[in-house]
């Protein structure tokens, strides 16, 4: 069970959280302007890397806030958590 650091509540056990998939996939401002392929990219296509991943978490059984995290999907180590809406932190050393 992961230990997830909520930006508001600190380190909490994973079971208090709900995962939200890849972060920084903003809903298009005008979906009707997208063609079917672009809309499918938004809906379904994800980077799913083995390595550092920016992802969404919700402290569902805590403060209820959504936030983002950088986590290494190979080791499951969290590198950073940051509030929703903020830019992905630059950890240096490339991705």
């Amino acid at each position, binding site marked *: 069970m992961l230990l997830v650091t909520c930006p*508001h509540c600190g380190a909490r056990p994973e079971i208090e959280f709900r995962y939200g998939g890849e972060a920084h996939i903003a809903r298009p401002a005008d979906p009707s302007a997208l063609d079917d392929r672009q809309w499918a990219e938004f809906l379904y296509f994800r980077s799913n890397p083995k390595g550092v991943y920016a992802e969404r978490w919700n402290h569902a059984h805590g*403060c*209820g806030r959504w936030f983002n995290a950088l986590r290494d999907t190979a080791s499951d180590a969290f590198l950073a958590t940051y509030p929703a809406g903020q830019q992905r932190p630059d950890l240096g050393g490339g991705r």
Partner: protein
Amino acid sequence: MAEQAARRTPILAPSAARPEAAISIAPMVPAARFALRLPEAAAKAIGSAAGFRLDMAINRSAAARDGRLAARLGPDEWLLHGPETASEAIARDVEAALAGRHFALVDIGHRNVAIAVAGAHARAVINGGCPLDLDDDAFPPGSATRTLLGKAEIVLLRPDEAPVFRIECWRSFAPYVLGLLEEVGREFAGA
């Protein structure tokens, strides 16, 4: 028929907590409760409303006059608590204090049920289902947070120095929460 207010039928029968026991698990009497939502910046600006302090740290609670208490469960969320009889007054006072602001005050007095867990083994019993660190250093008096107890969501409070924890849960989960606490507590009962 209409002139006489209907009786209240709580899902758990209240009983008295016995902090001196090895373990005491006691459903509490009904109370007034409100979910207050207010932007973080507004809370910081006004500090308190209707006697409820709002600018404490997240996951902290503060007692107010007349047995009232405010617990900050998130950046923009508070659980306001008071005696059952104070319900209307609390609503009126808070509405007045926050008039003109963006806020939501929602009565949840019947949604939540509270259970007091007290006694020397209180932490051990709660940790039978709750994954948080309840040591004084990690969960000092005045702590309040939403979390889990087994398969139920709860709000866990330790209002003051007394070794009494208060568990709030939604009404329909209350028999489960009580049942789990009592099952874990059997080991210490009468010890």
